């Protein structure tokens, strides 16, 4: 297993370097070295350090956060199709962002804040619905509440877009497809802080996830209070998802696919699954972002579309191996 992990880390390093070197403007290896050590052409410097580096860093963090979030939700909800957006996060974030854009407040900082706030509000609504039903942490009730909130959010978005000016509608659509195009170091720092706090906490709680994955009764028998622990885990996973939305819009498929890849590599124990999900997620998103900005350069493909296109064949091959 350490061999596999080492290979993964290596893959991540290679794809990250490639992402720094490749793009519509090519920067060869020597130039890249000079950017780091000094003495490079200022244009190359600007491109690598100001345009690509924050993008790659943000991609790393987004991938790690989504991978871990997906892994946590799949374990806590006992559902292999769970993903970070399940508990209303995507709908809430989109409503927040579209509201802001329709109101003309399309400034990127405000947009991030609006998306983040929308996401968290939706999560609390979903948990509230579950609580009101009397079955607080029952996965099925949560999933249904998530679907309901998502449907409502979609309706709200359609109404908003129908009455919004053309620019706002286009901007909203772009945002909902996910992009790292406007990555800045400030975004990297924000997501970095969230991940630095929530990530290790999730690794610490990984054993509780193992217990929860056996069922709530069995988890209780192993000393894990199922409802309180589940709630804590849902919130942590949704917080990570909301933080990535604030930074990069809605990037789909990563949180669904990556934990499965991780499990196929290192088994089902969640400490390993979460850590490897972070690694695999980072690699996937850095690679997808690289593809998004080079495949049809100088135009940029939406990141969410690329992750889906890359993810689907992966998923199919996993399914085949699982039979």
């Amino acid at each position: 297993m350490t061999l596999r992990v080492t290979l993964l880390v290596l893959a991540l390093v290679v794809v990250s370097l490639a992402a720094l070197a490749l793009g519509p403007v090519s920067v060869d290896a020597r130039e890249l070295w000079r950017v780091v050590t000094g003495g490079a052409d200022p244009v190359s410097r600007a491109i690598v350090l100001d345009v690509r580096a924050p993008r790659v860093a943000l991609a790393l963090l987004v991938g790690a956060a989504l991978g871990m979030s997906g892994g946590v939700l799949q374990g806590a909800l006992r559902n292999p199709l769970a993903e970070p957006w399940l508990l209303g996060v995507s709908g809430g974030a989109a409503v927040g962002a579209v509201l802001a854009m329709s109101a003309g407040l399309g400034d990127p900082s405000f947009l991030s804040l609006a998306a983040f706030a929308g996401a968290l509000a939706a999560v609390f609504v979903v948990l509230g619905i579950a609580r009101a039903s009397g079955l607080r942490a029952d996965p099925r009730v949560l999933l249904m509440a998530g679907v309901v909130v998502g449907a409502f959010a979609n309706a709200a978005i359609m109404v908003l877009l129908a009455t919004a000016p053309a620019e706002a509608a286009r901007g909203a659509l772009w945002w909902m497809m996910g992009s790292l195009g406007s990555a800045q170091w400030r975004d990297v720092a924000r997501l970095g802080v969230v991940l630095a706090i929530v990530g290790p906490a999730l690794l610490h709680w990984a054993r509780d996830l193992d217990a929860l994955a056996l069922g709530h009764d069995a988890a209780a028998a192993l000393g894990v209070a199922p409802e309180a622990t589940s709630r804590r885990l849902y919130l942590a996973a949704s917080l990570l998802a909301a933080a990535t939305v604030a930074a990069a819009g809605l990037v789909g498929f990563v949180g669904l696919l990556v934990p499965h890849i991780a499990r196929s590599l290192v088994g089902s124990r969640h400490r390993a699954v979460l850590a490897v999900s972070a690694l695999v997620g980072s690699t996937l998103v850095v690679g997808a972002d690289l593809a998004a900005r080079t495949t049809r350069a100088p135009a940029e493909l939406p990141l969410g579309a690329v992750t889906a296109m890359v993810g689907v064949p992966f998923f199919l091959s996993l399914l085949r191996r699982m039979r």
Partner: protein
Amino acid sequence: MIHWDDVSVRYPGATAQALTGVSFTAARGAVTAVVGPNGSGKSTLVRGLLRRVPLLSGRIVVDGADTVAWTQRELAQRVAVVVQREEPAFPMRSGDYVAMGRAPHTAAWGSDARSTAAIDSAVAMAGVGELLDRHTDELSGGEWQRLRLARAIAQESDVIVLDEPTTFLDIAHEMAAFELLADLARRGRAVVAVSHQLNLVSRFANVVVLLHRGVVAAAGTPDEVMQARILEEVYEWPLVVSRDPAIGAPTLVPLRRTPRPPT
């Protein structure tokens, strides 16, 4: 020992109580069986212990201490429970599954020698050694049941409570499981087995508690409880209780209501 003291439970939203004033003690060194028809509240006893459903009144006491003040983790350290339904959402290595029995005792990171010893001894007792490298989704129903037993034994608790431990087991494994429970009791644990297998219970239990509609209908030795008139009333089915000297315990045989058609 573990003592249910005047425990009443009502499920949220239900009109009738699932348990009313249930009291009994399961002593160390003994196998205490809880029997009764479907819906009599047997599983509710276990769920109440695990706090999956709140107690309306009463308390559960372990070795003199009221469990109400304990955290879920502390409870798991003192009482091991094998629940009725358990299925890993993602297949895991069987050896890892048994090791989870040590979770209530160990810190989040790392393991210790005591744990390894406990796991090894549990594996040996439950006879699951050759299953350890296989994954949980590859096991048969009976193998999975035994693995779960091993996990509970690895918890090294004074009390072990099992809810229907012999489902999916064939005759040989059923007997082996109950012999294991008797052995655990002999070694000093308090064993509580919720079971609908009256004939196995009569062979292995020291104390039988018969539940009927959430109330203790009878409690005592198997001879005292397994009597036709008591059981017929509770199970609402005609039956015969015989005593075969070769077996040494009462045997319950339900009678057919509809005659066998002539061959």
